[in-house]
């Protein structure tokens, strides 16, 4: 179960911007088109919402192997249910909530295995294939890489609740609060205030470290 990690690639030109974005109001239209056999619509859905599913999986701190399998399971199930989803415009929430449930199952299973033989439960995010090589070409890039790495490290060391919320919020394209709510099972109304608080906390950590 721990094998078959798909190698990541090509970090240097990873788009984080809105390329391939699915506007949320368009999701319903795309889902209906995909039901009718439009493969391009399906691809647009995957490109727009795949990062959200990935963020939810990462927010739950799964090992790489588990994360990959949960990600696939969610999309296989979505394809299977495509024509039966009652509110196509909420496909993002459907995906986020399905991902959350599968992540929780992984944790349950892990707790069980912990009684026996698995010391690698909380596999940290793998350091394999971190993209720093591609950023180290120039000095400027190196400095930038260092600041990005520092930011990420402080983020990783935030309290679990904040880390989880922010990891979902920073999916690209940014998810709607409805989707965040489905991903973490928290009320939509509490997301804004929590987000503020967590980002302030992160900034305070960075300032304390003199990283600003």
């Amino acid at each position, binding site marked *: *179960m721990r094998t*078959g990690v*798909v*190698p*990541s*690639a*090509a970090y240097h030109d*990873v*788009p*984080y911007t809105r390329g391939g974005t699915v506007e949320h109001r368009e999701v319903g239209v795309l889902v209906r088109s995909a*039901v009718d056999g439009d*493969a391009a619509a*399906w*691809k647009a859905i*995957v490109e727009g919402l*795949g*990062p959200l599913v*990935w*963020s939810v999986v*990462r927010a739950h701190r799964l090992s790489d192997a588990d994360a*990959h399998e*949960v*990600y*696939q*399971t969610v*999309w*296989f*199930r979505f*394809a*299977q*249910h495509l*024509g*039966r989803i009652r509110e196509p415009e909420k496909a993002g929430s459907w995906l986020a909530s399905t991902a959350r449930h*599968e992540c929780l*199952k992984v944790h*349950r*299973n892990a707790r*069980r295995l912990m*009684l*026996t*033989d698995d010391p690698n439960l909380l596999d940290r995010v793998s350091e394999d294939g971190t*993209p720093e090589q591609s950023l180290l070409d120039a000095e400027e890039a190196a400095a930038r890489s260092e*600041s*990005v790495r520092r*930011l*990420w490290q402080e*983020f990783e060391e935030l309290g679990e609740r904040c880390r989880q919320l*922010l990891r979902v919020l*920073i*999916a*690209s394209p*940014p998810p709607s609060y409805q989707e965040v709510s489905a991903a973490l099972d928290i009320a939509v109304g509490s997301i*804004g*205030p929590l*987000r*503020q*608080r967590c*980002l302030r906390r992160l*900034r305070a950590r960075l300032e304390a470290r003199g990283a*600003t």
Partner: protein
Amino acid sequence: MNDRNAMDDVHAVDDATDATDDAGRDDGVGTGLLEEELRQAAAVLDPLPPALLQVAVDAYALHDLDARVAELTFDSLVDALPVRGATDVPRMLTFSAGEVTLDVEVSAQGLMGQVLPPRPVRIEVLGGPRASVALTADDMGRFSAGTAPAGPFALRLRTGDEVVTTEWLRA
């Protein structure tokens, strides 16, 4: 971390509205910018692996309007108490689609199960858009495979002219 100068951030607007919590004096622009920096960091340090993007694109092939979906109605991982100290506890799953029930047990020894009401059916163990293993259920509806599915799987049953597929799950 220049958190006070940039005004052109996408979240500046909604920050202005939700920055009233806590002390109520936080500058929303700063947190919005910080969120965007974090988003960029995630895109560099923890991006969706391109191979996974492709897997999801290919998953469109699993879209099948003609198959009935047998929903998961029991999962020992969720619905049963853990057996303390027991090693290799099989995962028990039950799927239902109308009158058809499918009991499945997955363990290190493999996969076995039974279709109810009993009937001889052809069964495929699907492992993704392309991979599948063919099995046959006997007159009692029983079937087995010597290897457990690694990763996501679903069972596709063909009985008469009907096709039933179990919800995708991770073994």
